[in-house]
């Protein structure tokens, strides 16, 4: 009986030792495990960006919404962080920056992901009870709770504090629980949109493209979207996307109601390409299907090229 107890004790000690060794060895790798190894840069979306924003918010650098899109606010927050912590200020979250971030901040992944999934307003400041940071009670427009006022300016002091001791313990999941990342695809709550247009504009254009050219090859669809944009640019047509699309008798799909079919992903991609500058038509502002065109006038337009079933003209 005693022997057994001793054995147990020995085993326990041994186990403890190994975990300590293991943990200390693993400490360097921890950072990389928390984030994936990608270098995160402006414009990126996804889980790593959520983590980056959460950690920057934990330290008080980032006051925006944790939405998983690396925008300008995240960019400046990251640069401030890099500046305050004596890293190279480049606005890129590379291995060094990520390691530093992980060592000085905590990330409550479970909490953050849950809030995002539930679509709640929330914050992730350090030193504040997480339960107080979900937005239900907080009304819109009210400032963040309990002033985690660690503005970058005061960070010198903060840094020393944090070097001395790990940040105050918090309720809610321990930071170690970064565990295997859930592979459930997170539904994004925000998206990048090219400047000058909204998602609604893109949707409207995708509707038009789908209604006009759903049987066409991909570049044929990009071409239709490009024609819409060329018309917006042209002095001969209305100056807005909706103005161009709803110009009476301009598009058959608008006239016969096909524009209200639900567009597929490909149509949306085609529209994005056109907005981002692809114009397969060579600056065309008209197009027609030679098999179905009823207007004789359209044949008099100077033709540029043919894509799929459509002829594109000046």
């Amino acid at each position, binding site marked *: 009986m005693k022997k057994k107890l001793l054995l147990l004790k020995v085993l326990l000690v041994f186990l403890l030792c190994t975990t300590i060794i293991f943990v200390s060895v693993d400490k360097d790798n921890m950072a990389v495990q928390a984030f994936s190894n*990608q*270098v*995160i*840069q402006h*414009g*990126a*979306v*996804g889980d790593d960006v959520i983590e980056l924003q959460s950690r920057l918010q934990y330290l008080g650098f980032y006051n925006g919404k944790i*939405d998983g899109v690396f*925008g*300008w606010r995240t*960019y*400046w927050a990251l640069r401030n962080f890099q500046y305050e912590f004596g890293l190279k200020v480049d606005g*890129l979250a590379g291995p060094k920056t990520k390691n530093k971030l992980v060592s000085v901040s905590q990330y409550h992944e479970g909490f953050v992901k849950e809030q995002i999934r539930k*679509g709640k307003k929330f914050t992730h400041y350090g030193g504040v009870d997480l339960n107080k940071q979900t937005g239900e009670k907080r009304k819109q427009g009210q400032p963040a709770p309990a002033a985690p006022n660690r503005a970058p300016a005061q960070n010198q002091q903060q840094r020393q504090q944090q070097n001395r001791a790990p940040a105050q313990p918090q309720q809610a999941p321990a930071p170690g629980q970064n565990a295997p990342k859930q592979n459930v695809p997170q*539904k*994004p*709550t*925000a*998206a*990048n*949109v*090219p*400047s*000058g247009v*909204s*998602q609604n504009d893109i949707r409207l254009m995708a509707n038009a493209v789908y209604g006009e050219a759903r049987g066409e*090859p*991909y*570049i044929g669809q990009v071409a239709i979207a490009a024609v819409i944009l060329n018309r917006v640019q042209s*002095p*001969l*047509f*209305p*100056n807005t996307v909706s*103005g*161009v699309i709803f*110009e*009476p*008798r*301009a598009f058959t799909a608008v006239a016969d109601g096909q524009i209200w079919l639900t567009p597929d992903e490909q149509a949306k*991609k085609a529209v*994005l*390409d056109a907005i*981002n*500058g*692809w*114009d397969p038509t*060579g600056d065309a502002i008209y197009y027609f299907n030679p098999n179905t065109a009823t*207007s004789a*006038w359209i044949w008099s*337009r*100077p*033709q*540029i*090229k*043919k*894509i799929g079933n459509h002829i594109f*003209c*000046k």
Partner: protein
Amino acid sequence: MLRTILIGVLTLGIAGTAIWGYQEHRDKNAILINAENNYQRAFHELTYHIDVLHDKIGGTLAMNSRKSLSPALAEVWRIASQAHSEVGQLPLTLMSFNKTEEFLANVGDFSYKTAVRDLDKDPLSEKEYQALQELYKQSADIQNELRKVQYMVLNNNLRWMDVELALATNREPQDNTIIDGFKTVEKTVEGYNDTSFGPAFISMKKEDENFQHLQGEEISKKEAVSIARKYTGFNGDVDAKITENGKGSDYGFYSVSIRDRKTKEEANMDITKKGGWPIWYILTKDVKQQKISLNDASQKAVKFLKDHNFKNLDLFESVQYDHVGVFKFVTNENNVRIYPDAITVKVALDDGRILGFSAEDYLKSHHVRDIKEPAISIDEAKEKINPNVKIMEDSLAIIMNDMNEEVLCYEFLGVLNDETYRIYINGENGTEEKVEKLHQAEPIYEDIV
């Protein structure tokens, strides 16, 4: 007995059909009238605005003091753009309405450019004054013709919907008054083609630059195909299709379509005949999963451009859409960013292949520039900026300003109330050329309650 019931049922049926038919007819009429009203509104507003436009332009001609001229021109600009939008609401394919729209666009551009200018320092030139007079005369003619049409419409109770219905059933409309009237308007304006609008107007049609800066010899179809193959990186057997541009194009190009026989992947691109430059390229391929980071992808894009002899390019914007990275590059010459020289590259985030690129802007505007030193210092430029903006970065850049001219500017990235701005201060005279609020991510609305 049976007969009576049958007669009764039939009578009921006929009566029911009649009532139903009448209701349908009434509904249809209601909708027709509604649509008709829209057209009528647009049309009458248009004629009204042309009236006002004419009067206002007349007013500016009589003005002497510059102080009143600027607001008056701004007013002209506003009305012209309204009239322009109303033309857009009228049925299009009835006739080509291009000339009238172009006239309105010209009036709008002219008045805008002169209204925003400091007329104290830089008053209307003799040529601009003449252009204004010319516009005044033209607006008088258009007004006259439009009034005629309007009179006929009102007097004979003409309907736009009749024209529409005729078009829908492919009949020639019986009363062509509206169409004929507008054709006259169009013809009247057509005579104005040769109006000189002064030097400022040369730049208005930017799209007509026709790749004039391109270097190189004319290439053959065969060469075009081999160039395209190089871009696709297809290894195995391919089917290639090549077509020349149509007669309507302002410049010569080949369209090449290449299909890999094994993988069935298809790539399309346009190549200029002169010099064999790639205008755009698209590889059609599904990207299902993200495997590489945006950063890795940006390096692929940089390498791709280097491999294809595009030099001195700066990555200035990177954006991820789902599983695709889009990167915008501009020329960097001696630390001056040249924004008109833009190239966009699209990279798949699964295997890092190039999904497409667009060099149209670059090819149209890239040429050797003589970039002068700015006349004012950077501190002087900073003083021109709103003091509330916190300046984060500065550099030099060449941009297109509102007048569509290339200008050398100090470029500042600044932050004001959580928003980031790009601000351009003219390096010659310190004018604030452009203030641009940079885009933030947009929330996805479907899930937000």
